[in-house]
Each structure stands twice: as C-alpha cells, then as structure tokens.
C-alpha cells in the first residue's frame, strides 16, 4: 500500500504557526473530524494523545513528531499532517513536520508500518525537505506518490530492530566487555570475527557465570554464604581473561524479514532479552524485547 493513499488533502495543513504541540494536535483533530465526520467529542481524543505525549518519545531528531492515540471501538487508521510555519519547539527537538495518527487499540500492523514509513522518509533529508517545502496539501501527496513511499502489510523485525550496536572481538578482555556493557547500558554484545562474521555472543549473565562454577548451581541455596572465592577470582582475572574463553556460540537468531510474532515467540520461549538479527552469516541488527515494548506495545 502507498503511504499517500492513506492521506487526504483536507487533513493536511500548511503554513500556520503553533505555540505548542497541543495546538497543532487540536488543529489536526479538527480537520480529521471534519473530513471523516467523526462523532467523537474532541476532548475524548485530545486527552489520550496528550497523555501519550507526556510519556515522551514521539518527536525524533530528524524533525518529525508523531503524536498518536489508540482509541476504543475505533476500527480505522486516520492520519493528519501539518507543516508549521516555524518549527515547534518541544523539550528536546525542533519539529518541522507533525503527523497525527489515530488508530484502534487492537490493530497494530498498518499503524506501525505507516509510522515506520514516516520515520524512514524523515531520515531521507532530500525527500523530507522536499515534503515540508512543497507548500500545498496536493503537492505533499504528489511528492509522496512520486517517491513511492510504501507501507508494508506486516511488521518485520527490520522495522523495529536496532541497526547500530556495540560489539566485541574474540581477543577483547572480559574487562573491556564489562566496560562496554556498562557504557551502552546493554546486557548483550555480539562477538565478531576480524572479517565481520557473527561468531559468538556474550551477556552480562555470562560474565557473572564465570565466577559461579557448576557446583554452585547444584547447591540450590546460597543463603549461608557471604562471599565466594571463584567470584572474587573473576574480579582479579578480568584483565587477562579474553572474550573467546567465555563467549557462547550463537544459538538463536532472527532474520530481517522475521515476523513480529516469531520474534515475540522466540523471546518468550527462550527467556532471552536480546536476539541477534542475522543475514548471510553477518549480524545486521539486534532486537531487544524492550524494542517491542517501545515500538509496538506502546508505540
């Protein structure tokens, strides 16, 4: 489906000034109500949109903001777009394009893919500038049509994974691994070969496990213990021990076109927090279950 097909000229506004995001949202809601003859009272929609805004994370560094609400008994996806005369200043971003989306509480696929398409086009600086500079609703839709911006029919891992990530090599020390975990606030690091192939993975729990030999797991209860020699040993050895000694071979992975449900199933059944996304033996991204929470459940 083309992204342009989801838009109507009447719900695209150009050239007005807004003092706040709420003002822009109210303007767009008015336009959507009129165009689609919505019977919902305005406040019943403004409230959830602004509540979601309060949680943050709907404005992006590229200059796009995507305020949205998921409504009860609302079996549709409505999109309103406005290009303010001067950028709206939010807490962290300067917003040049506001895309308001209203969708149902249960249907996520079309909404998330439309959202992903808007975010993707905002990353294309040339296209983005062309869109916000086109001046009229009709021109806006035409630019989108000409650029053939598509909305996928299903959600794939590629749309929600993180494509940039820290990684380790086999010769790195355990200390460097611990530092990297700490610096990036992550609990998962892939291990790459000099050629860039995905050859292993390491989690924070793997680091802890170095200090907990097999017999400790057979004890069942460690309440009687205050310290443990092997764990103290680990702290002493972290500068000489290498990642190669403690990493695990990759076992579970996703592919770029893996579906959302496959990813959710793998997270739940394996009890893992992160899954590598692999293509031709190389890692192209990492999906965390928090990505699903942020980008799907609370997107």
């Amino acid at each position, binding site marked *: 489906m083309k992204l342009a097909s989801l838009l109507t000229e009447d719900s695209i506004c150009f050239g007005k000034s807004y003092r706040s995001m709420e003002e822009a949202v109210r303007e767009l809601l008015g336009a959507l109500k009129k165009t689609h003859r919505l019977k919902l009272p305005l406040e019943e929609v403004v409230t959830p949109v602004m509540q979601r805004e309060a949680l943050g994370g709907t404005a992006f560094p590229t200059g796009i903001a995507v305020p949205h609400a998921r409504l009860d008994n609302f079996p549709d996806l409505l999109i309103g777009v406005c290009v303010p005369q001067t950028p709206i200043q939010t807490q962290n971003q300067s917003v040049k394009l506001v895309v308001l989306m209203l969708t149902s509480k249960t249907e996520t696929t079309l909404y998330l893919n439309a959202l992903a398409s808007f975010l993707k086009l905002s990353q294309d600086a040339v296209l983005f500038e062309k869109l916000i500079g086109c001046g009229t609703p009709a021109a806006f839709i035409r630019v989108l049509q000409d650029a053939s911006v598509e909305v996928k029919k299903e959600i794939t891992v590629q749309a929600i994974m993180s494509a940039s990530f820290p990684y380790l090599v086999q010769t790195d020390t355990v200390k460097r691994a611990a530092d990297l975990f700490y610096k990036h606030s992550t609990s998962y690091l892939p291990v790459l070969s000099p050629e860039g192939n995905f050859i292993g993975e390491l989690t924070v729990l793997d680091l802890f496990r170095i200090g907990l030999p097999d017999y400790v797991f057979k004890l069942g209860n460690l309440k009687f213990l*205050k310290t443990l020699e092997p764990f103290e040993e680990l702290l002493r050895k972290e500068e000489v021990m290498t990642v190669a000694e403690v990493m695990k071979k990759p076992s579970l992975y996703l592919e770029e076109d893996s579906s959302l449900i496959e990813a959710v199933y793998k997270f739940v059944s394996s009890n893992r927090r992160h899954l590598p996304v692999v293509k031709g033996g190389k890692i192209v991204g990492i999906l965390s279950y928090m990505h699903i929470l942020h980008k799907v459940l609370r997107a």
Partner: protein
Amino acid sequence: MNLITVTALGIFLLVYIGISFELVNKTVIVLLGAMVFIALHIIGQEEAFRRIDWNVIFLLISMMVIVSITKSTGLFQYVAIKTAKAAKGHPVKILIALSGITALFSAFLDNVTTILIIAPVTILIAVELGISPVPFLISEAIASNIGGTATLIGDPPNIMIGSAARLDFMAFLVNLTPIVLIVFLAFVGIVYLLFHKELVVTNERRARVMEFDESKSIEDPVLLKKCLAVLGLVIIGFLLHGLLQIEAATVSMLGASILLLLTGKREVDDYFKDIEWGTIFFFIGLFILVGGIVELGVIRVLAEKLLSLTQGNLKLTAIILIWVSGVISAIVDNIPYVATLIPLIQNIASTVGQGAAVPLWWSLALGACLGGNGTLVGASANVIAAGLAGKSGFRITFLDFTRYGILVTLVSLLLSTVYVLWRYF
C-alpha cells in the same frame, strides 16, 4: 541345551554387555531385552509381570519421594555445613566427618542421591579452604558405598536381597551394620594415612568456612519439622516391619503418602518428577529378564554346578561369593549381577535349607556393595562424584579413583571374609 535356552542366554549376554560397556542406555536395553523375551515366548507375559518384585519397585519410588521432599527443606545441606564447622575447618577432620555423614546418609538414602547432595557443598568447602576437592569426593563416593551396605534400604542390591530372601530391616542392621562400622573405621584409617600430610590450609582460609551460616540453609522450617517427623516414623516402621509382618515398601509408601499430604503447597506431580523413572524401569526390565532365565532352569543348573564345585561346603561358597561378587561389582553394574545371583542362592537354599543359606545372602550383599568401590565405574556414586568434579573443573581420572578404591575394596573384602567366617561358621 535347546535352541530357546541358547537364544535366551544370547540375548541375556548381549544385554549384560550393553549395560557393562554403556553401549546404549541401560534402561532401554534392559526393557528391550525383556520385551524380546516375552515376544519370543521365553517367558509368558503374565509370568513376566509376576516376576517383577513390586516390593523393590515401591520401596525405591517411595524413598525417592521422601528424599525429594526432604531435600527441598535444606536439611542435608545444613547437616553437611554443620559437620564441616564442627571439624573447626581442619581439612582432614572435615574429610573424615563429611565421609561419616555421607556413609550415614547413604545408609538411609540412595547412594547417588547422597553424593548429589553432599558433593556440591564439599567442593565449595574445599575451594574456600583453597585445596583440591578431589580427595574429598573420592572419599565420599567410597563412604557412600560403604554406608549403603549397612541397611536394607541403603543400596539397591540390599533391597533386592532383603525382598527375595525375606530378610527384614532389623536383620540387616544386626548382621551387616557391625561389619560396615568396622570397614568404615578401616577406611578412615586409610584416608588419614593417605591424606593427612597433603591437606594443609591457612588460618584465613579455615576462617572462611567457619563464616558459613548453616542456619540459613533451612529453606522451609515448617516442612522440615514434618519431614523429620515422617522420617522418624518411617525408620521406626523399618525397625518393626518384620515384627508387624508388613513389607518395607508398605512402610515407606505410607510415609511418602503422609508426607505428600502434609506438604500441601506444591503440586504432587512436582515431587513425582523427581522419581528416577529410568532406574525404576531398569529394575522392571531386569526382573523380567532374570525371571526368563530362571524359568528356563539355567539358574538351577548353575546352582547345582556351584554346589558340586564346592562339594556343598557353604563356608567355601560364602568366601567365593564375597570375592567373586566383589571383583565383578568392581567392573560391572552390581544390580543385574545381584538380580542374577538371587535365584541362584534361592536354589542353593532350597537344597541346603533356608537357615543354612542366610550367610550366603550376607556374603552376596557385602561382596556386591563393597566391590563397587574397586574402580571408578564400579558404582553409580563414583561416576556421579567424578562427573560433578569434572564439571566444576576438577578432573578425577579412572586411575585417580581406582588407586584408592582398590586398596579400600581389598581391605573391606578381607574384613568381610573374616567377619562372615567368624560369625556364621
């Protein structure tokens, strides 16, 4: 010898080789052999099922349930830590004390279960003391085999012998426990001589062990009290079961049922998951296989041969039983061996009289149980101890174990021979 007998013996031999060399999972091969016996009409299905000694099966199942529940309270860990602290962190004293506890637990629990409970705490203690856990684990495996010999329920061969010969718990206590105590003392002497110079620790390391707070190992004090009460009743039941004319399996199953009723909180199925069903079916298959061989009259012929060889001399038969059982058990699994020998001794008993044959049962028990210490593969407890050590980075090789094991086995078989001759002839 007809074709059926030759076929049956061939299958029996194949199963034995399979078990001894661990070519296939022992439960699978025994069950397969048993079903082939039935399919080939070597033994009828009804007779095959009748041959299963349900007293052994239910005793094993119910003890596994009781141990599973009691284990979850942290009792065994508490006792092990308390013991190490009572030895004031002195390594040789700890080694001897933990071996003593292992032997005591093994007299009432399955040897493998005992090792699974004691070995992890032992490795921890040794690591904290800064010494190798290998001497500790070898000593405990040996102690578990010695302790298991002491009672009716300590080791599967004893359960089978007690059930087949109708010897009760008390009989085992009176006849086997004294010699087991002597063997254990000799073992302690050997351990002391071998290890007392090797095991030296610093005061700081010793203090680490003394810092363990054993009271925190008790996970569920309420359940612990219930377990202790039921365990006490079960032991009293074992002591009296001969007098009350109820089988040991009834006593333990009654105890297990009461304990299951008292635990309440968890699903009953959780405790049944801890039953080693592989072991249970191994026994079932074995009873059928040996039943088939007995049906064919092979055992009767062997018994007659043995008696004619020893010219009816029971003293000589007892000595042969101790040493042959000891040597065989050091090399192969003692359970199928004892299962085969039971009908043989029953045959001898029908010739010489039940009373006269009783020393032979004790000889079989002593040889089969104590022989397991001969090599690393002689008993499951040895293999499990070595496995646990290996996984924790401390390798116990066949020779590491055997050089201590063989010495202890020779001394214990010698002491057993003197004991049997002195006490019964």
